[in-house]
């Protein structure tokens, strides 16, 4: 059934699908892959009810390609996948980033590399989410740690992608995707929705890649009377290919500046007991749940611990880390990988606090006790 206001017991993947529809999703293309498949199944059922479209494509690359096409035609678009499929989509993600086509790419992380453990959680795709495609490019990465947060954060993913014309990677993990929790579904009519900026000038005045002060060029829908060109080749303000050094440079720098301009508006971090924290945890996704428990347990034992829970992984919330690092003697970074964001925490901390990684790569989630032990050790 379609999400109606009220309290529901939902699976993470189901919350992702229903939140996306609430955000205005009207086109989904996907390919079956564990542990993300329920998102496609839900959307196959629900999208036509709201006049939206669902298609199961022949492969992962076709899926990312189709959502970019649909977005160019004006539909809010999404695809969902997991590790191997996410690898296959990277070229398409780069195309969307460079041509500034809004779209949301869900990656439910599982153990990798390669086929890995398809049914088990991991957090190994954090760096790939930011840098998976070739070349410098803007991309924003959001990461929920609960089912309720999945519902609200996927709405933000669409709003950000539309507002800034940047692809948003929605980085879930197998635990959050498959667990069932309470979700308080809001009245859909009260959810704030963003739309891509559309041209305010006549078609003959339209420069598809000329951006104003906010660095985001207005985007016309295909078929709306603005006949323009979109290419993955380096392009000038008119949208046509260029190899002129100043124009190549200008596009790279505008896209970088756009990401920086967006950063304060797209950085979501929850802080728990950090104001007087002597030791802190930086965590995200399912691991942040164990971290919250560890911090409370530490406090109960008299250790002043705090938590930085990142819901935005990229752009990296450096300021939050820096502030906590000024007071805390150590920051523990538990991750279900061999140490990926711990390097960013180190960079942001800049020697102020001792940054200590905690890796678990056995296809099992990190427990509160493991984090607590590390907090007591540092």
């Amino acid at each position, binding site marked *: 059934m379609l999400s109606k206001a009220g309290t529901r017991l939902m699976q993470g993947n189901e919350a992702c699908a229903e939140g996306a529809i609430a955000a205005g999703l009207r086109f989904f293309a996907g390919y079956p892959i564990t542990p993300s498949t329920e998102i496609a199944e839900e959307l196959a059922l629900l999208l*036509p009810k709201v006049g939206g479209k669902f298609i199961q494509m022949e492969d992962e690359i076709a899926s990312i*390609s189709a959502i970019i*096409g649909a977005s160019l035609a004006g539909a809010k678009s999404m695809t969902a996948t997991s590790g191997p499929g996410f690898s296959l989509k990277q070229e398409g993600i780069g195309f969307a980033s460079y041509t500034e086509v809004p779209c949301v790419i869900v990656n439910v992380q599982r153990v990798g590399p390669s086929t890995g453990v398809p049914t088990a959680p991991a957090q190994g795709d954090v760096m790939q989410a930011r840098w998976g495609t070739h070349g410098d490019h803007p991309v924003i990465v959001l990461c929920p740690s609960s089912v309720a947060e999945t519902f609200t954060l996927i709405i933000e993913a669409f709003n950000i992608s539309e507002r800034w014309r940047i692809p948003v990677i929605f980085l879930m993990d197998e635990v959050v995707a498959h667990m069932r929790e309470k979700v308080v579904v809001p009245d859909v009519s009260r959810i704030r929705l963003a739309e891509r900026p559309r041209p305010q000038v006549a078609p003959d005045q339209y420069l598809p890649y000329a951006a104003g002060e906010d660095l985001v060029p207005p985007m016309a829908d295909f078929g709306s*009377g603005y006949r323009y*060109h979109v290419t993955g080749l380096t392009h000038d303000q008119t949208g046509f290919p260029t190899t002129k050094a100043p124009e190549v440079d200008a596009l790279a720098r505008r896209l970088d500046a756009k990401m920086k301009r967006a950063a304060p508006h797209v950085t979501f971090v929850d802080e728990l007991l950090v104001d007087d924290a002597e030791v802190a945890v930086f965590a995200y996704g399912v691991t942040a749940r164990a971290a919250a428990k560890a911090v409370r347990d530490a406090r109960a034992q008299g250790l002043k611990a705090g938590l930085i829970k990142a819901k935005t992984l990229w752009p990296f919330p450096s300021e939050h880390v820096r502030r906590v690092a000024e007071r805390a003697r150590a920051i523990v970074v538990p991750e279900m990988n061999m140490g990926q964001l711990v390097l960013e925490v180190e960079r942001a901390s800049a020697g102020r606090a001792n940054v200590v990684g905690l890796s678990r790569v056995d296809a099992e989630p990190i427990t509160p006790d493991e984090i607590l032990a590390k907090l007591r050790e540092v």
Partner: protein
Amino acid sequence: MAMPVTHYLRTSKMPHIWCAGCGHGIVLGAVLRAIDSLGLDKDQVCVVSGIGCASRAPGYLDFNTLHTTHGRAIAFATGIKMAKPELKVIVLTGDGDAAAIGGNHLIHAARRNIGITTVCFNNSIYGMTSGQYSPMTPTGSLASTAPYGNIEEPFDLCDLVYAAGASYVARGTAYHALLLSKLIAKAIATEGFSFVEAITQCPTYYGRRNNMRSAVDMLKWQKEHAVPVAAAAKMSAEELVGKFRIGELGTRTRPEYTGRYAAVIEAAQKEEAEEDA
């Protein structure tokens, strides 16, 4: 009320990138004359391409134009057609783009019978990267990556696409430009998936390596080896060896995909309304 082809061109983007003697301009002219003969509104035409020489065509065309990644034009076009079924969506692609890296999308679009027209500019070679063999390079031909002669057999692309389920399949050549234009017009007018293979010449990277030094030599080759389907029907298998058929190779009526999906929406909304009642 025929318009000159310049009506459909972004003439400010000329000169084009194609080599002297390349047949792509002839094929593109045939596409534009086909569009003109149908009286299509430029705002309602969307032209999508992949990567390669042929795929640079949309940049010169005054429509909604999209130059995508290598091989994926039909997949992008599928998203556009689904989102806005009222658009005429035309894919311009080359033999490497459509038959090698994009082969999966080609057969699945045909299987779905989605209302997209694909024109494959088949010059038997990868021209953009300077002459490697493609899935359409004839056996025995020389290419930069087949210096001892190509040992692979090419597809019959039209048979492949028709077998996969397309509504309309035809083949023409740059030499038979008027016929080609008529075939493309019928393809665009087809409701389901339509496919036209346009045999075209690459004197620079195919002809010079294969004893056809000029564009004229290659056009003569097209003239001498093409057999209209009606004539081919009266010829024996032995007589057809080394020749290829031109004209309409397959037509059938099947439900078009976005129309089928519209019925899904109707059914789903009816069910939802009944649940609410």
